[in-house]
């Protein structure tokens, strides 16, 4: 038997086997029973907003309660005057952290 005829024979056997339909026998019901409660995913913006919001709130509380507070306010004032002091640097670092956190979360 030539290779081509062999291939036809083998192709037919494989395709015939692939065509045999399996009865559902409750499979679909089992899948439906195992599905999560709802298809709709939670709002995509909820998670980043919660994380960024709580980070920002924590930052604000730290500004007013912790001893670092005056330094951050000082930094903002100096930054507004375009003076790049260590306090201004700290404020920039905090802002950058918030932006990176937001970006990472939205990419997630």
């Amino acid at each position: 038997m030539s290779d081509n005829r062999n291939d036809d024979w083998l192709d037919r056997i494989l395709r015939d086997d692939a065509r045999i339909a399996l009865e559902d026998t409750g499979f679909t019901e089992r899948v439906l029973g195992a599905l999560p409660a709802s298809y709709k995913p939670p709002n995509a913006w909820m998670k980043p907003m919660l994380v960024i919001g709580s980070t920002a709130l924590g930052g604000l509380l730290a500004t007013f309660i912790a001893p670092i507070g005056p330094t951050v306010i000082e930094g903002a004032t100096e930054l507004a005057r375009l003076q790049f002091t260590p306090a201004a640097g700290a404020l920039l670092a905090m802002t950058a952290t918030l932006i990176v956190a937001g970006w990472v979360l939205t990419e997630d």
Partner: protein
Amino acid sequence: MPPAAAPSDAELILAVIERDDRRAFAEIVRRHQSQVRTVLRRLTRGDMALADDLAQETFILAWRNLRHFRFEARFSTWIYRIAFNAWQSEARKRREVLLDSDDEKPALEVAAAEEGVDAVSRIDLERALSGLSEGERASIAACYYADLSHEEAAEALGLPLGTVKTHILRAKAKLRARLASSEDKT
């Protein structure tokens, strides 16, 4: 009045995405369950219970990820990709478990009991398929049982196109030899 045409896969998928329509998803599962389960049975060397567990996992993953489905592709191609991934992760887990085991015989006896008249020839085929390497078996399952092109199979399996073609050639040579020898015996 002529009967209404059955909705396409794309229409059913939109119904799930937009309205959380479970009946639409049930119809998708009913349409594709046979082929997905058959492909997984071939991949798992005839282990029907494992194949059905993986098929169930495949459809649940499809449900969770339907919004990522790109409508330019065939739904069947997309779902086979999920099925192959499910099988590959399971195979990785089992390999860890079965490292010390030298006996990994397929569940052919169960298949024989349940399949009836054509069981003998199907068992020959199943036995021949189970003797292939995983890559060869996966390539045959993708191209013949899932009816994917070589390119689609390569994409679904995460293999280079040349490797899939080589696997198919080698697999067919082995299958020819094994099936011919089992015919000689009968």
